[in-house]
């Protein structure tokens, strides 16, 4: 019997089934056999994991207390469980797929995976929302305000109005025989130039032969995939693979966790294998410091608070590298934020939330910024250009104008400790 096999570890359940009278047992088995009808949609080509959607829809929102989508909006409608319940109703065709309010619910998520972190069933409501958004895309239902993201990819290969990857860019560097490809993130190149300059200074200091190969490179596809444009993102994956695999690159260096996660994890889930090693700058720098190739010995007499980007802390389960780098820098004092490490809180910019829910995204950024300011640090430091941008925007948008702390990237701190100008 299938059910006995499935529950072979739960002996109490097997015993219970064996002890039932005949009618109860056959009713129980019939219920078990028919369960899949709740996981099946009659919508054509509907590929969402309905089983997880149903499980999440039946859960009492056990992750709610830490889910920024709920905390920042204060709307039960937007809690992880409720999003899944509404999505399930869409899959069941009870709520039409083109219901505008339901569609906006599917986009009320920062893909921060706080839900998954606390979930007793290891479900990410955020990932389920991405799957739902891909269903919208199949049906031409992606909200109009997101169309520009796709159009810009067609126009200039990035999600920005102006292409960051131009011939004229100061970041367009191509050292002959480069073995390192510095894959500069779109947000880094446009909004976090000081960080990119620090990275370039660090590579030059290390005498690394590197290229940024702007003309041939493309957006990693993360922002597009998260809002539902999976097929466009897959095309970009293919193009990036061709560019990278056809070059002499041995290491791809990224300055953005979203790029890293796409190139490394999502691409390979899609069967697109990037051959060279893919590394984030923080890992690269720690490695160089440990090998003695980088010697950050100029004291940085500052108090810093580190913001763990969700993708590192929860997506990739890594929280120590940055802290190890900080420990190597003389003078630096790290004071931890309320909610750090795996329990970090989203900056408000994940999953395209700043495009789909601008006001709430800024509100979330401000909430997180205040948590990070608790110890009055000199610098708030992160390893993600998007988080850093979010805090810069929060500072700008806040009524409070007594911000004294600076928003920095880890690379900038390392460069400062090496006395590099950038």
């Amino acid at each position: 019997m299938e059910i006995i096999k499935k529950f072979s570890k739960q002996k109490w359940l097997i015993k219970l089934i064996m002890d039932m009278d005949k009618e109860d047992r056959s009713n129980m088995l019939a219920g078990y056999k028919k369960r899949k009808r709740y996981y099946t949609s009659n919508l054509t080509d509907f590929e969402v994991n309905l089983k997880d959607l149903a499980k999440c829809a039946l859960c009492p929102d056990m992750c709610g207390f830490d889910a920024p989508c709920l905390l920042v909006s204060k709307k039960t409608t937007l809690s992880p469980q409720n999003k899944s319940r509404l999505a399930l109703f869409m899959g069941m065709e009870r709520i039409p797929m083109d219901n505008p309010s339901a569609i906006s619910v599917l986009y009320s998520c920062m893909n921060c995976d706080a839900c998954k972190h606390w979930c007793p069933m290891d479900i990410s409501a955020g990932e389920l929302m991405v799957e739902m958004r891909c269903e919208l895309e199949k049906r031409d239902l992606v909200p109009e305000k997101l169309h520009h993201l796709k159009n810009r990819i067609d126009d200039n290969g990035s999600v920005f109005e102006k292409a960051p990857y131009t011939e004229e860019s100061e970041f367009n560097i191509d050292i002959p025989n480069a073995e390192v490809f510095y894959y500069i993130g779109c947000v880094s190149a446009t909004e976090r130039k000081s960080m990119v300059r620090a990275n370039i200074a660090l590579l030059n200091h290390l005498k690394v032969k590197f290229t940024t190969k702007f003309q041939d490179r493309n957006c990693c596809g993360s922002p597009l995939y998260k809002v539902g444009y999976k097929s466009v993102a897959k095309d970009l994956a293919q193009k990036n693979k061709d560019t990278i695999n056809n070059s002499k690159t041995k290491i791809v260096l990224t300055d953005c966790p979203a790029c890293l996660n796409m190139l490394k994890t999502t691409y390979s889930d899609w069967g697109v294998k990037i051959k060279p090693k893919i590394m984030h700058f923080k890992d690269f720098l720690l490695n160089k410091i440990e090998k003695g190739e980088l010697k950050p010995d100029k004291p940085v007499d500052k108090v810093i608070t580190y913001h763990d980007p969700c993708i590192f802390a929860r997506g990739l389960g890594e929280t120590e590298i940055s802290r190890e780098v900080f420990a190597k820098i003389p003078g630096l004092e790290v004071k931890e934020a309320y909610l750090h490490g795996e329990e970090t809180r989203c900056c408000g910019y994940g999953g395209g939330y700043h495009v789909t829910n601008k006001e709430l995204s800024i509100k979330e950024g401000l909430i997180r910024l205040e948590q990070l300011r608790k110890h009055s640090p000199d610098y708030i430091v992160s390893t993600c250009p998007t988080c850093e941008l979010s805090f810069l925007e929060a500072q700008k948008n806040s009524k409070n104008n007594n911000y004294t702390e600076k928003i920095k990237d880890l690379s900038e701190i390392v460069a400062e400790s090496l006395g590099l100008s950038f």
Partner: protein
Amino acid sequence: MENFKIHFKNKTEFKDIDKITEKLTKIVGSEKISVDMIDKIAYGKDYWLISNLMTLKGTLPCLPDIILWPQTAKEVSEIIKLANNYKIPVIPYGEGSGVVGGALAVNGGIIIDTKYFDSIEINSTNMTVTVGTGLNGAVLERNLNELGLRMGHIPQSIRTSTIGGYIAHRAAGQFSGIYGKMEDIVLSMEIVLPTGDIISSKTYPRASVGPMVDRLFLGSEGTLGIVTKATCKIWPMPEKQGKLSYLFTDMQHCLDAIRETLQARINPGVIRIYDKKETERHFGETIKESKDKIMVIFVFEGIEKLVDLELQITSGNCKKYNGIASGEKPIDHWFKTRFKVSEASEFGPYDQVMDTIEVACMWDKSKEIYDAVINSLLSVPGIYLASGHASHFYSTGVCWYFTFSGIPKEGKDHFTLYNEAWDATISTVLKTEGTASHHHGMGINRGKWMQLEHGEEFKLLQKIKATVDPNNIMNPGKLYLEEIQKKEL
């Protein structure tokens, strides 16, 4: 929405709904009001367990008419005054984790989401915290823990429930042995009455100034007003946590061991007795020697010396009643799994009827009630699982927490079976001099037992309700009504 069946369909349509909406918009602002169907679907449920089957079958428990997110007690007051004019129901809504349908808008009306009431003010001299009642319990506890403090109210639902919900149901946390039930934790409240008046009670250690009016609102389940603020007791984080577990063969023995411990004024934060079935379910895989035994776990908290002494005395009592020490592993296992709520998600789609029912009784009925309820549940045709654990203890008695599950026999529907199991349990409990609920509240499931539970005092309660809420606008259909359940699902 025509694609859904609605379980509690509101029979009276509110004619002036557009006008009401317009006026409410003026009170809260256009961002803080919704009549959108998607919001109504979201707020048309709580965690009344049978509604999980409804979700799978595409039935909605109910549909409120309007959802509001007020930000001040004054706004709440204005909303309530308006609701009185139009005689439209008002239902307070925290996080909808209530398991008895308390937050369901069974007669339609206005949902007041309390989540904007989320302030935290700590007084570390008095060791009190004054909080907005829409604050999530785990968010509060996390904030306090950061400062080395705790309120210590840790219900299993702490991650998905609010202070207001705890007050409304007189909730109990896992560590109630030390920190108490919500009625022991709350010192004073700010309440918006069903007429719109705002009252605040004074915070004092104890007093003798006539009847304690605000106590009436503890357990009032949203029917006597909306609690907007509460001052609660807090404590320093404990120096030590002590863990103890014992295995018993005989239920009466372990009850006696615990009773003697508590009556000797030893106060474990947590005590849990798992009957043989639940021991097998929870510990069968991890604690091999628990086979065919009753597991009892204890957690002590406080100053190290005191905890050590409590461990020693409790061990002595367990041994005296033939308990076999089982080490710390069962407690570690409990700590690891205590928030892992997945049964409803895993087994719900098998079309089963399941739920839990918690009741309380004095010590002299403790074994009798346990036996009687298990037998009466198993005598309901279609119920194939009935088990129990005891989760809260007092020097005077105990809270039993029963779990049942079943599938309707030929010709019966799910809802009938559900009601039969509930009726069998509550009627048995009341017959055996127990009390119908220990911490989940009465809501829809137990509303019809209010009269029997309270006897003569129920009339007084009805009079109080009629005086405080003359138009019966606050959460109608709960506590004071006889039969509102329907048969079909």
